[in-house]
């Protein structure tokens, strides 16, 4: 179970950072849904790692985005945070939008990341197989589009409900809208913000994982990431969608741990 704390940096910027587990440090950058203390994927990683998981700017307060104008300023903000946390040459694992941030941190500040695991990463664009415009869907449909394994989705909802009590539907929708608003700031209307050009700057060893049935980021984006990261190890997991780490939690956690240990 993660515990969260609010920290304030020298530059005045506030962050909410969750942490838990013991072992080598691993920085987790979450996907479209933010962080829940009961996150099962992080519970799996916590068994052998000290997991540090900052909540992306905007997810708890949209006003945090006012001073972050673009992806470069976002990367700078994370750099300041990692300074504060004393993290350099660390393992960074990111999912979806978080994987885009992870790649950007590693590309902007190559010394920050020694190992980089990108799960269903956002950040590239290919005209031949465009990223689905999930923002042009009603909120509640976005959620179901992201999951291939609907039983896993229901199981996660039940787990959260047990841990946090039954959800308030209105507040849940507001939370989804707020998180996605933060994501749109850095990915609208097309998530290609130059990462393709910057990928070769990444010095870390890289693992990319894609869900074969991901209806948001087609698994073929594995090829596009591989072009910019010729030494990366790339895997596509059958029978999974965009919520890969929550659809095959143990399998994906084992793959990530094996990669981090290698």
């Amino acid at each position, binding site marked *: 179970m993660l515990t969260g704390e609010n920290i304030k940096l020298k530059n005045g910027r506030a962050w909410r950072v969750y942490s838990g587990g013991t072992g080598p440090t691993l920085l987790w950058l979450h996907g479209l849904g933010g962080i829940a203390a009961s996150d099962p994927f992080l519970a799996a990683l916590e068994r052998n790692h000290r997991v540090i998981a900052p909540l992306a700017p*905007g997810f708890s307060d*949209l006003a945090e*985005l*006012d001073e972050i*104008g673009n992806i470069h300023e976002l990367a700078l903000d994370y750099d300041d945070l990692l300074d504060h946390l004393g993290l350099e040459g660390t393992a960074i694992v990111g999912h979806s939008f978080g994987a885009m941030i992870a790649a950007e941190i590693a590309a902007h500040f190559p010394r920050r990341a020694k190992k980089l695991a990108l799960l269903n990463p956002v950040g590239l664009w290919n005209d031949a197989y465009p990223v689905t415009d999930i*923002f*042009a*869907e*009603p*909120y509640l*449909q976005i959620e179901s589009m992201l999951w291939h394994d609907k039983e896993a989705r229901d199981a996660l909802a039940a787990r959260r409900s047990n841990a946090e009590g039954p959800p308030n539907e209105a507040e849940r*929708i*507001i939370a*989804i*809208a*707020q*998180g*996605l*608003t*933060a*994501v*749109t*700031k850095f990915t*609208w*209307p097309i998530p290609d913000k130059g990462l393709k050009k910057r990928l070769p700057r990444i010095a870390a060893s890289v693992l990319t994982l894609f869900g074969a049935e991901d209806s948001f980021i087609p698994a073929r984006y594995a090829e596009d990431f591989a072009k910019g990261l010729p030494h990366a190890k790339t895997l596509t997991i059958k029978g999974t969608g965009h919520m890969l780490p929550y659809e095959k939690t143990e399998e994906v956690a084992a793959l990530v741990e094996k990669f981090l240990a290698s």
Partner: protein
Amino acid sequence: MKFHWFHLMPYPELPETFKDDHRSVWVDVPSSLFDPKVGHRAYNDYLDELEYADSVGFDGICVNEHHQNAYGLMPSPNLIAAALARRTKNAKLVVMGNSVALYDPPTRVAEEMAMLDCMSGGRLVAGFPVGTPMDTVFAYGKSPATLREKYYEGVKLILRAWEEPEPFAFNGKHTQLRYVNVWPRPIQKPHPPVWIPGGGSVETWDWCVDNEFLYANLSYFGYIAGQKVNDGFWATVDKAGKERNPYRCGFLQFIACAENDAEAERLYSEAATYFYSRCLHVYPGFGNPPGYTSIPTMRAGIESMVARSTRRQDVENLTWKEMIDRGYVVAGSPESIVQQLDHLTDKMHVGHLMVLCQYGNMSKETTLYNTTRFAKEVIPKLRHKFSEYEDKWWPKDTLDSIAEPAPLATIV
């Protein structure tokens, strides 16, 4: 009271099976459905109708801006207003308006509106909508996370560009200009009245009240559904300790004026059905992208008109009776309409009533009939209303003598 004749300029020949064959009338509606010859006729008919509204005594004629859609064919309302400036004399040109966040730099809007004010002899009302999500974030690719701050900054820049007599530098978050120096300048001083079309965002109420802008509640769903929005606006006025002057507020209403209820149904029900089932056939995902609606507005439980229009079960299969019962369309004899609008304007406390006498695929002939009866038999009965208030949201510097277009033969 003042009465304004509003044109949406719909594409009038969407196929019968449109809503079954296409997911949306906006954003990704195939442009192959647009026949330019139909467009030629429609634009010219629509201009005739707006000009006619001027000739029968409407106070204002209204145009607005929409993109990539068959709902309203005015990507540039300024072009239409420019055409109207030449062939109208009395009606004010209510441009409702320019979606400021779409223009880089926004001084383009200040320039074009100043041109319109000069051309029309000081008859411009300057409307500044945020713009629907379909227009702004989908068709024009603006991030919903920053759309509103870009809009607010743009409006401030435009007003300052009109007010300041000397060039100035503008170092904004979204616009940086070393030299802001708008030529031409508007006739109206310090600038034309500013009207803000709103669909129910709580922050827009504060913004209008703080800056003395008119708030126009543009509703497709009549006063019953629009009441909550107006109540919120007036509560904001009260809280600020300002006068409950009805001319602070505008409201849009569909009108179906005829000899009696039966004739209204016969003349207008097909066009109204065309509007609600085809023109409002917006894919729900386009109606409310994340970030477009602020968190406070979501918490207030106010659904925007656009979001509401995407609840398809509410709009697409309406019967004429339902449109009437719910107040979407105010229909009937002139006497009945006078009574209904008297009630509506009391409840909503609005001094500026914008009416839609053309909607959907309504023919020019029917539109002019609707317009004529409304102008001759409804307006005079309600004209006196709210005369105890001063309308401070209306052009005051209109020239006494407006230039006439010279007859072509005499030029040579």
